[in-house]
């Protein structure tokens, strides 16, 4: 079964540093997303991306965040100046809408655990 791959699995960074989280979505998917989950809390939507531009973003996704699809396979999330409260699991997801409705849904990666110290 195709997978969404995220790297690194765990990243520790100092407050104020920039981090880039990387994702390789499923190859024929066209819709890409980032979500995050602070420990013990809900999964939260950050941003959706289609056709090389952001289609929607949440209030969390402020000017410190950016996304990019630098080539045909990678999808990245950059946090410019990390804060302690950015510590969370960050999940990348991709989707395709060309399957029977009962079977189409997002495929999530296994996440990157970001720890800001």
């Amino acid at each position, binding site marked *: 079964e195709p997978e*969404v791959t995220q790297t690194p699995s765990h990243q520790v960074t100092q407050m104020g540093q920039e981090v880039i989280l990387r994702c390789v979505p499923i190859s024929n998917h066209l*819709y890409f997303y980032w*979500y995050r989950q602070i420990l013990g809390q*809900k*999964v*939260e*939507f950050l941003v*959706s991306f*289609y056709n090389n531009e952001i*289609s*929607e973003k949440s209030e969390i996704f402020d000017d410190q965040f950016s996304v990019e699809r630098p080539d045909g396979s990678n999808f990245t999330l950059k946090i410019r100046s990390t804060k302690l409260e950015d510590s969370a*699991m960050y*999940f990348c*997801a991709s989707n395709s809408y060309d399957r029977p*409705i*009962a*079977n*189409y*849904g*997002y*495929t*999530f*990666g*296994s*996440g990157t*655990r970001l720890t800001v110290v």
Partner: protein
Amino acid sequence: LAKTTQPISMDSYEGQEVNITCSHNNIATNDYITWYQQFPSQGPRFIIQGYKTKVTNEVASLFIPADRKSSTLSLPRVSLSDTAVYYCLVVKADKLIFGTGTRLQVFP
């Protein structure tokens, strides 16, 4: 976005069928109902999605009554590995809004 309400937790035993019901009273005409599963420290995993009546795939069944104000996820013959959090979501456009989910514990 329609708010969903589901039990905080459920217990079951191996081999039993588990039904998790979710209410979504404010669901809109164009909304779909979708269910995800999440294990600790892993990303959510899609289970099933539907609009009305009954939908079945290789993993589960989803029952949606005519008024669409609730839905029931049915997991046949659960095993220990089905212990996880199960989320019911109402999907509008292209964004998933997760609630706190139902924590299912399966016992031997």
